[in-house]
């Protein structure tokens, strides 16, 4: 597969603050690349540099093999962007908003009409075409925001945190729509600080922190980089803290913590960890309400690499 985007040694500073620090990565055709990182990690700045909206101090950027500049109108016609802030006209209906932004790319009215219908269907706004934005809920507004960015059927789509403050139903709808876009042949760059979305959606992930790439790969590859293999959580009241060192001495246990009646045990390796824990609790006569096992998440990877939570 060809690289649709090539970013080499990108440096962006805001006065003395380095927002993007010598960033290099590529995006392959047809993939959904997730840019994951906490607020202020440089995700949006990177996208704005790629789109040639922002000046940058170093590096070069190529899209579809060509250098991206503000005058690259041919390249721009292949790109769709959904910004974090809802960017629509309050004075226009849902249909008119999509028509306005689609019309900046597609001249033919008949083609545009078809594209608008497709976009409305994709984001599930067919029944709201004549609504004004003020009548829409936050989730529906986000969907309209997406429809405005992708109606012209771009080959490369940037989605910058499109699900911020969105209800679960709209979020699922949005994520399904993005998968459909990929299935229709679009390449997608998706920024978020929601690791769950990245896990559901992205073929490949770049984790950013302080403008630098701290990890890159598929979600499975990234999880393998975490030293923990399994997490067991036990809901238990009034656990005697003298038990904690004993639990830590059990086979494969990496860390043990007890807070708010939750006993959290992480394992570096091994099998049957959950069964072993249940057996131990029974042998000690410790009653528990719930016990469950989880695989490590991208947040655990981020925590291990940076010492902080993704949403810090």
């Amino acid at each position: 597969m060809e690289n649709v985007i090539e970013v080499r040694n990108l440096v962006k500073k805001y006065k003395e603050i380095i927002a993007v620090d010598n960033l290099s990565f590529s995006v392959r055709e047809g993939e959904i690349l997730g840019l994951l990182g906490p607020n202020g990690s440089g995700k949006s700045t990177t996208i704005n540099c790629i789109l040639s909206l922002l000046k940058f101090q170093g590096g070069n950027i190529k899209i579809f093999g060509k250098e991206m500049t503000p005058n690259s109108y041919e390249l721009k016609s292949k790109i769709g962007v959904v910004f974090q802030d809802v960017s629509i006209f309050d004075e226009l209906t849902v249909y008119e908003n999509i028509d306005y932004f689609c019309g900046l790319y597609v001249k033919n009215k008949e083609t545009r009409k078809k594209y608008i219908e497709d976009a409305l269907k994709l984001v599930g706004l067919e029944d709201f075409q004549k609504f004004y934005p003020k009548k829409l809920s936050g989730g529906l507004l986000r969907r309209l925001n997406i429809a405005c960015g992708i109606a012209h059927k771009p080959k490369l789509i940037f989605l910058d945190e499109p699900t911020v403050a969105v209800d679960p139903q709209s979020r699922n709808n949005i994520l399904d729509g993005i998968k459909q876009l990929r299935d229709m042949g679009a390449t997608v760059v998706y920024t978020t600080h929601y690791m769950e979305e990245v896990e559901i959606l992205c073929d490949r992930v770049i984790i950013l922190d302080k403008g630098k790439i701290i990890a890159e790969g598929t979600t499975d590859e990234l999880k393998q980089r975490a030293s923990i293999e399994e997490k067991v959580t036990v809901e238990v009241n009034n656990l005697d803290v003298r038990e904690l060192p004993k639990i830590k001495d059990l086979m494969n246990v990496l860390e043990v913590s007890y807070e708010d009646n939750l006993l959290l045990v992480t394992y570096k390796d091994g099998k049957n960890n959950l069964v072993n824990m249940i057996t131990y609790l029974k042998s000690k006569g410790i009653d528990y309400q719930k016990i469950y096992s989880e695989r490590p998440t991208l947040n655990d990877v981020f925590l291990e690499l940076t010492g902080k939570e993704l949403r810090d």
Partner: protein
Amino acid sequence: MIDMFFHNFKYILKTLFKNKMLIFWTFAFPIILGTLFHLAFSNIANNEKLDIIDIAIVKDEEFNKNIFFKMAFKELSDKKNEERLFHTQYVDEEKAKKLLEDGEIIGYLKLEGETPKITIISNGIDETVFKYVTEQVLQMSQTGIFEIEDINIKNISNKNLDYTMIEFYTLIAMAALYGGIFSIWVMNQIMPDLSAKGKRIAISPIKKGTIVLSSFLASYIVQLIGMALLFAYTILVIQVDYGVYSKLVVLLAAVGSLAGLSIGLAIGVLMKVSENSKTGILIGITMIGCYLAGMMGISMKNIVDKGAPIVNKVNPAAMITDGFYSLYYYETLDRYWFDVISLCIFSGVLILISFRNLRRKKYDSI
């Protein structure tokens, strides 16, 4: 690009018409203000309903020397004159002060050289009429347009003393300059450093010049429609008579609107503050400009013209009102065309400065 131009033009036109706040300030507010002016000053416009105003004139050597003032106030106070304006007492200064303090007169006039000095203790319609008439007499004496025998109430009342006309000139100037609200709003929508919509437009394959020009043109069309409504309202409802120069009045209003949009464009592009702050700045500039141009009383325009002439030379509101005055005060149209050309240059300079800034393609931060 023509398709894109009209596509953007159509939708910007639509959004402007549907924006209630913009329409209120640019369409409704001048009409409301015009109605208030009409209600407040209709007594003055209709001379038959004017009360005789009690004034005094300090009769000293200066006054006796000035035949112009002497004749004018004699005519304006003549009991035989059916359109008489004043009941005038000719007294010394001390007596005039006492009459004023006792409330028997609303003010008195004293000539200092050839300059009339008016003393009043409050600001009302009577005081304004007194000041206005005095200024008119002074202007006539300076320009020498009228012979002494021409100074009569008919000349002053029919041609020059239509107080509401002056208010309507500044009202038109204000409405024209308020058009800047449109260009501020439009710039805010289409510039990537000002809004997310602007970012979305900036990454589309349409040239910035096409977007800016079509949006500016749409704003101008909406502004002209607003001005047309204002004219229609003042002519049909308030029954303002713009006289034989109505076409030139419309032309001046159109050029004034261009100046208003240019100010809005410059504020929109050059100032890095919120849209509301920009609108506030524009309204502030417009109101101060209109005040200096004589919206709250013609005397202010004369004070500025005499004390700091450069201020009203660069004040678009003054250029507009001055253009209107010149249609009625001067025999030739030279001064009118000077004002029209000045407004065009003023607009051109602001547009050039704004477009120079708009040429920027990338931003340090957005």
